């Protein structure tokens, strides 16, 4: 029998592009292929499926050759096959050929003699149901059989899509990571050692100090160790000397004072702090905290001004210098922190991807379609959410709490799974409308820190 496809229209080059281009699995409904050599049968099946509004993409073919051509262009998820296709070919043979295009294909076999079918082979090939033309084939039994198979196909297909997405995500991240690292190295506009050296050049020249050290303390209670201290000399080089805990250091005292302070003849009064190796034996000292960023304390220490030591005028000068020095340092440190935050975020994303993969079933423990569907509609496991939350909550100007952002993302994900991409597009439009409305009502302002 002839095919019921549109016969010989000239191909539309634009229309062909989507077929040959890699299709987006996330956007496509399931594809159902009807293969029967009788045109009225194909037409009837089509009508039943159209009326049932199953949100599937329907294809129909009159014979094996046409069916295989279609399968070559589009992945077929469910095949409804006539057992006897005429011209010596049968549905089971066709199914075997279709399996090459999609190993996950399942089929409903339409036959006039179901009792004679070879169930074992057929099941192995993906036949999941039989409908006997002579006994139980009507609209209801047909649609019930199709719905039953679609209910099985859809969760498994979503799961596969998720796996594919994760693999693509990992590949993309792993591909981009070396590029990011290279770019970070090339684009580092402010080298920290250079900034420190420049600051000291100015301070030593202005105050007459002989030497100096810049101490940077980074505290993060979630990290081990929570406190990281580093000292830089006047050339901006890192000092390798062991440092005393910040809380018992002169720098810690200067930080707690909140402003520049002098310490001439330090040996004459009880200090109640432990001196760093580079502070011992100094005759005079001027220490000033620099304002940088939360969690980061930076203190500049100047040593040994000849004569009577540092004076009030030096303190004032260093106080002023600390303001702009802090600004420049903040910039340099922020660059580093943003690079670090980026790498950490990528690392966390990869770990989140691993966790998510681990929660999906392995080949050996296939869940029931119902279980798979339910799991996909649930939020990701707590560990994954925490990792994503951490990555969102890293350094940077966040205007929305990480948890809130994740909740929004999760709501959109659930929407997409339940109602498809159109619902997500609608959601995006709704958010944009709300933003426009709020902008109009309240005026647009820069987001605060």
């Amino acid at each position: 029998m002839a095919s019921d496809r549109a016969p010989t229209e000239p191909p539309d080059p634009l229309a062909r592009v989507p077929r040959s281009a890699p299709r987006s699995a996330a956007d496509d409904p399931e594809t159902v292929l009807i293969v029967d050599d009788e045109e009225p049968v194909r037409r009837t099946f089509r009508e039943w499926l159209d009326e049932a509004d199953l949100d599937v993409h329907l294809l129909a073919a009159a014979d094996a050759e046409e069916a295989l051509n279609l399968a070559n262009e589009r992945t077929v998820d469910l095949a409804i096959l006539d057992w006897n296709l005429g011209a010596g070919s049968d549905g089971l043979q066709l199914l075997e050929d279709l399996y090459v295009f999609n190993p996950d294909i399942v089929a409903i076999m339409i036959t006039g003699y179901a009792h004679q079918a070879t169930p074992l082979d057929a099941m192995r090939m993906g036949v999941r149901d039989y409908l006997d033309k002579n006994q139980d084939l009507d609209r209801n039994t047909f649609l019930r059989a199709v719905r039953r198979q679609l209910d099985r196909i859809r969760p498994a297909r979503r799961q596969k899509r998720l796996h594919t997405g994760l693999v693509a995500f990992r590949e993309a991240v792993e591909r981009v990571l070396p590029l990011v690292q290279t770019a970070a190295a090339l684009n580092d506009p402010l080298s920290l050692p250079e900034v420190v050296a420049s600051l000291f050049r100015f301070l030593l020249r202005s105050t007459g100090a002989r030497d100096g050290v810049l101490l940077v303390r980074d505290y993060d209670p979630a990290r081990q160790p929570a406190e990281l201290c580093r000292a830089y000399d006047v050339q901006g080089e890192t000092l390798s000397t062991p440092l005393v805990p910040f809380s018992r250091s002169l720098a810690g005292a200067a930080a707690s004072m909140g402003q520049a302070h002098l310490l001439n003849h330090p040996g004459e009064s009880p200090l109640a702090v432990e001196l760093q190796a580079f502070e011992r034996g100094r005759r005079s000292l001027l220490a000033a905290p620099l304002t940088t960023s939360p969690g980061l304390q930076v203190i500049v220490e100047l040593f040994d001004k000849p004569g009577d030591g540092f004076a009030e005028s030096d303190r004032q000068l260093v106080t002023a210098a600390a303001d702009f020095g802090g600004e420049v340092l903040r910039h340099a440190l922020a660059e580093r922190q943003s690079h670090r935050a980026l790498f950490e975020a990528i690392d966390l994303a990869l770990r989140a991807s691993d966790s998510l993969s681990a929660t999906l079933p392995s080949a050996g423990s296939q869940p029931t379609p119902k279980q798979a569907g339910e799991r996909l509609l649930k939020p990701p496991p707590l560990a994954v959410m925490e990792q994503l939350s951490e990555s969102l909550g890293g350094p940077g100007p966040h205007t929305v709490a990480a948890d809130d952002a994740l909740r929004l993302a999760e709501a959109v994900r659930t929407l997409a799974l339940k109602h498809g991409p159109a619902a997500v597009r609608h959601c995006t439009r709704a958010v944009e409308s709300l933003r426009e409305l709020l902008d109009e009502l309240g005026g647009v302002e820069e987001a605060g820190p």
Partner: protein
Amino acid sequence: MSDAAPPGPSDVFDEILALVRPERLLHDPRATGEGVRVCVIDSGIERTLLAERFRDRGQELQPIEGAVFVQGRAEPLPYDGRQSAPHGTTVADIILTLAPRVRLFSADIFGPQGSSDAEVLIRALHWAVDIWKCHIVNLSLGVPEQRLNPVQRRYQLLRAVEDGYFKDVLIFAAAANEHPLTHSYPAVFAPPLLSVDKGPFDDPLGFDYALNERIEFRAHGRGYVGPFASEPATSWAAPHLAGIAARLLSLRPGLKPFEVKTLLYWMSRHPLT
């Protein structure tokens, strides 16, 4: 009774208060701070260091208790006797130098992270007043005006200070006079607390009433232990006046904040000789 004409009302007070000489009050052997509970809201206190320091002088300190207040946590963390930074230890040492028998409480609001905010300060204030039942609170710290926005936050801090006042707690706050263009809180909440600037006094017990903007008192501004203690600072002036108040309270524990403030005002008009 004297045959002299009865004195006018101002003379009565002059006569009575003339008996209240600073020497008599401050040098009374009972004026040690005994029975007075003082909270130092600061960067923690290095307990061992102070104990050894006073033991060397033959003085045994009362046990120092405390807690560490951190952002985002209602209950404070336990105090392990360590400072987060030396500032609080210098402040505590000043109070103990003037009133060695006080019972000190360390409210460390900076903690290891080295920063704090108004919410943490307010919680520590409430803790000092309601849990530790302190009579005196020392605040050698300042919160810039811009960090007390929105204005409700400023009122929350004011209410915490007022709450102390109505529970007869003396709150001493250092004036941050290094920033003449901005107000520093809570020192500018002058009426319910005692705001203190540093003054040119050689005697640690020296102080005066010198109303300047919203700052009422000045006190000795040098400390005794700590890297920057020898440099005059309002941070060191506030605990000097707190220590003086502790001496007064140990003589008459029931004095109310306004009575102590009046006494201090009166004493400042009759400086130590």
